């Protein structure tokens, strides 16, 4: 039986599996966001992103966010999955999604899931350029 809420920190994300996890007989709408590594950031070429997490806390925070989404919208399924380790250009680093009876709820919930994840889940990203590497957003 599929779970209502799926929360995971993984080494590798297969973005194609999320649809099966979100589908549900009462869900007319499924909305998914996939975040991937972009080749250029502010005109500088990125070689890779390195993700690190405080896993026990990240899982707890993602579960809280999923539960907040359930409380705000009428949802049938929620998935939040983040990758850790070294990710090259075009590789997926995060997948979040929600399914619901009608499309308003899943669109709004999906946006909330990714915005809130970025805001407070303890995951850190280092941009690796040719000659340097930088922890994103660390300093003003």
């Amino acid at each position, binding site marked *: 039986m599929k779970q209502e809420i799926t929360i995971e920190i993984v080494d590798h994300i297969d973005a194609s599996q999320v649809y099966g996890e979100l589908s549900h007989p009462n869900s007319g709408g499924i909305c998914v966001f996939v975040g991937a590594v972009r080749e250029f950031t502010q005109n500088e070429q990125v070689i890779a992103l390195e993700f690190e997490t405080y896993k026990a806390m990240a899982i707890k925070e993602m579960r809280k966010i999923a539960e907040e989404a359930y409380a705000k919208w009428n949802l049938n399924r929620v998935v939040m999955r983040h990758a850790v380790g070294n990710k090259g250009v075009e590789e997926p680093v995060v997948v979040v999604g929600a399914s619901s009876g009608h499309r308003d709820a899943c669109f709004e919930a999906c946006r909330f899931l990714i915005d809130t994840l970025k805001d407070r889940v303890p995951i*850190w990203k280092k941009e690796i350029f040719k000659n340097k590497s930088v922890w994103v957003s660390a300093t003003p």
Partner: protein
Amino acid sequence: MEVLLFGIAKDIVGESSFRFDEGDVLPGSVFELKQKLKQSFPELDKLSSLAVAVNSEYAEDEEKLSRGDEIALIPPVSGG
């Protein structure tokens, strides 16, 4: 008392955790912990933000610390 370190905080301290020595006066609250660490590692004070988690939950400055708590320093997050 041990403090887990991640991201840039780990780079600043140079270790993946920081341990107060037996002889040290242990910080009694989240606020005291941040003060002590910022004194020892001034680079921590230049971050956009610095939060503390106690037992894997965000903790306010007033929260008291106990010897058995799992404590972590949370520099600005940047997932996604």
